[in-house]
């Protein structure tokens, strides 16, 4: 990596480029350049810089879960014996079903997001999670309208990048 790149400052233009790519990672640099009133060269140089700095670290395709057989998204809020939380997470991850499992602070000490084909599969996974004796209580919530639950990366306030050196 070019060491000079890391000392370059992030500008307002960079933030606008990030926003444009958050809305559509396939947006053409020509279109972005036109919209921002800069040259296409600037856009591609700045994108390269943002990638080299690790600010942009990948891209993903967002697709309709229900069209691919995922009919059921659920969130489990779990109370577990505090000293055993790490073991419980390890156990839940070994089940392969959950999409996300994380330890939390607050009303619950574990949160698990399950992405399932149907409620039967959900029941099966919850039943196996329940087998862990360190779990005190599980509150299950079925998440609905998952088609609308798209990640809104464009809501991220990026202004802190401007302050960074």
């Amino acid at each position, binding site marked *: 990596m070019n060491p000079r790149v890391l000392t370059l400052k992030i500008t307002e233009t960079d933030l606008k480029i990030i926003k444009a790519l958050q809305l559509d990672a*396939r947006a053409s640099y020509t279109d972005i350049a036109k919209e921002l009133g800069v040259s296409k060269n600037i856009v591609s140089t700045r994108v390269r810089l943002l990638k080299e700095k690790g600010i942009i670290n990948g891209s993903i395709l967002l697709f309709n879960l229900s069209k691919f057989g995922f009919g059921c998204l659920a969130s489990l809020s779990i109370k577990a014996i505090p000293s055993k939380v790490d073991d419980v997470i390890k156990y839940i991850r070994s089940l392969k079903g959950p999409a996300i499992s994380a330890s939390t602070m607050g009303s619950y000490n574990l949160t698990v997001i399950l992405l399932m084909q149907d409620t039967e599969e959900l029941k099966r996974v919850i039943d196996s999670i329940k087998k862990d004796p360190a779990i005190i209580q599980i509150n299950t919530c079925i998440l609905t309208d998952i088609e609308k639950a798209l990640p809104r990366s464009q809501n991220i306030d990026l202004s802190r990048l401007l302050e960074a050196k």
Partner: protein
Amino acid sequence: MDLVDLKIIGLLIQDPQMPFSRMAKALDIGIETVIRRYNKLKNEGIIYNTTITVDMKKCGYTGHALFLVNTLADAEPEKMYSELVKKRNVLTVIHAIGDYDLLIHCIYSDLDDLYRLQREISKVPGIKYMSVVVVSAKDFNTSFPSSEYYSHMISKMAASGQIKT
């Protein structure tokens, strides 16, 4: 959706920013066909769009939090939803059935920022009660949208033979 569509989706999963020309070459079909099919998949709501992932830590954020919201009996969920998804640093809002009615996923830079966010969210009319769980940083992928979540989904889809990668 036919096999060609699935192959297009497969390529987009591997590299969401792959140019149409490269996709056409890989599939040995015309570029116009790829573009037409891509637009069709989008119009039919099978795929939504592509987005870049950013490193949250580099953008100045230290953690994720989930607000679990109970709404009032006379609340207007759709109105609440559209108001919430516009808020700064609110990344996902999902309707839920169970112990709570709305799940709000946010990011924050420090505890003051989390407190500010909570105050801001609680001003949305229709909220009866909300609790918060703070996700421990070690359990969350710092890139958003979470590549962990999507790769999990994709491996499940590939396992059930729904996509060809």
